[in-house]
């Protein structure tokens, strides 16, 4: 392959024009998930983030040995600052979900999210990291050109926001999703329990993580082995094979079923829901635009009938 060809492929992949609908759909659901997660955490806000909580600020700051921007360190160390930051975060998450003043909202939201995450890093899990990464990508994405207050106000002023945009932020999101699966597949394929077929047994016997009962399937050697090995197969497919056009849709369906299965049996909030919403982003942007249009039409029809 010649350099010119490589450049052409790179440009086609990252910079071809795609409908903006997918990014706007993603912004809305990402916002809802972030808002729901934050509301859950707010119940124990003082405990996790307050100076009279489990980890006073000086302990948290001692961990941040690198250059960082944490508003808890800038504001006075008091319950009032925590309350202000909590209110600010909720307002920003609502603005983000509704697509209001999106660029500035995204930037401030990234700072406040980082502030909360770095205030107590021990409580974070993969979902928090993925949310933070996606939020960063959204800073650069025209994710409020549709289905947003920004587009509504622009329309009122007689302006039309772009409906087709350069694909690079969408591609970065897709690469990120794909990489999560590739990475976890590589890590698991080094584990003896994944190879001998027993990993799902041990994962589902972690008492703190169990949720609803699933008849038979998690109680026989045969089905557990099938589940363990199909987890590896599904994660490999979601990471690699999903890029092959003919396989994309069936793999997304398997991926969604896979995450719904985990959501049912295991008590891991946010992550499964986030992956289900993210997997939809792996669809061809034009297909996704059509699906969103069909879904919106159905919702409107139901409203009219209602």
């Amino acid at each position, binding site marked *: 392959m010649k350099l010119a060809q490589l450049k052409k492929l790179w440009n086609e992949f990252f910079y071809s024009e795609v409908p903006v609908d997918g990014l706007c759909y993603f912004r809305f659901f990402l916002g809802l998930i972030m808002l729901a997660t934050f509301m859950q955490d707010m119940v124990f806000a003082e405990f996790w983030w307050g100076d009279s909580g489990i980890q006073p600020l000086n302990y948290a700051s001692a961990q941040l040995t690198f250059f960082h921007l944490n508003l808890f360190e800038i504001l006075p160390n008091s319950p009032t600052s925590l309350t202000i930051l909590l209110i600010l975060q909720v307002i920003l998450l609502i603005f983000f979900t509704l697509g209001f003043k999106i660029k500035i909202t995204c930037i401030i939201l990234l700072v406040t999210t980082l502030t909360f995450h770095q205030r107590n890093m*021990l*409580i974070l899990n*993969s979902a928090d990291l993925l949310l933070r990464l996606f939020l960063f990508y959204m800073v650069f994405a025209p994710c409020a050109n549709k289905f947003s207050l920004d587009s509504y106000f622009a329309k009122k002023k007689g302006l039309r926001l772009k409906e087709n945009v350069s694909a*690079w932020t969408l591609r970065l999101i897709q690469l990120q999703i794909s990489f999560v699966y590739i990475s976890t597949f590589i*890590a698991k394929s080094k584990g003896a329990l994944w190879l001998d077929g027993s990993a799902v047994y041990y994962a589902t016997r972690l*008492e703190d993580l169990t*949720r609803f009962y699933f008849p038979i399937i998690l109680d026989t050697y045969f089905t557990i082995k099938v589940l363990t090995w199909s987890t590896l197969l599904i994660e490999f497919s979601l990471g690699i094979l999903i890029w092959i056009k003919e396989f994309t849709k069936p793999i997304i369906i398997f991926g969604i079923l896979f995450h719904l299965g985990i959501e049912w049996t295991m008590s891991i909030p946010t992550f499964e829901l986030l992956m289900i919403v993210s997997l939809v982003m792996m669809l061809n942007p034009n297909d996704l635009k059509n699906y969103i249009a069909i879904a919106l039409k159905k919702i409107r029809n139901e409203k009219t009938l209602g």
Partner: protein
Amino acid sequence: MANLKLIKRIGANLLIFIFLMIMIRTHLDRSSPLVYNIYKPITPIQNFFSFYQNWSMFSPNPSRVNAYVDAEIFFKSGKKITYSFLRPSRDELIRRYLFGERFRKYLAEGIRLDGHSRLWPATAEYIARDIKDEHPNEVIDRINLQRHWYNIPDWKENFIPFTKEANVPFQHFIFYTWEPKK
């Protein structure tokens, strides 16, 4: 206009390149000086945003330890009480789902381990503050932070049915003792 477009394209390419580098970093040899030097310019950005792409839940193997942390509080009066945090496996389903994971991460995967010993005094001090209202007339003598755990037995030897309690006793170990400053 053309210049602005070019600058934007260069910026986007740079960002894509940095993020591809960050993505693959977890799978490279961390001890290699070559890797360290290549990543030197990117590390501050990665640290700033805490973008550590480590997607390792249940890998390379799922944990085989069921564990929790609680505390024994001894008062000067000779009275002793046990302090419990929210424990997902013993809490009701909705609380477990909504709040349990944070507590599991902080206590069972965090505080329990020696690697987080710098947080043990803060944990004990929090407990001391938290029980003050419930026991206003008591003076704390000491607080023992205690870990409880059992290893999930080999499935071929002792198969535990899903969602049923394992018939395996917990082991206990006091990993930190805190005494109020005199």
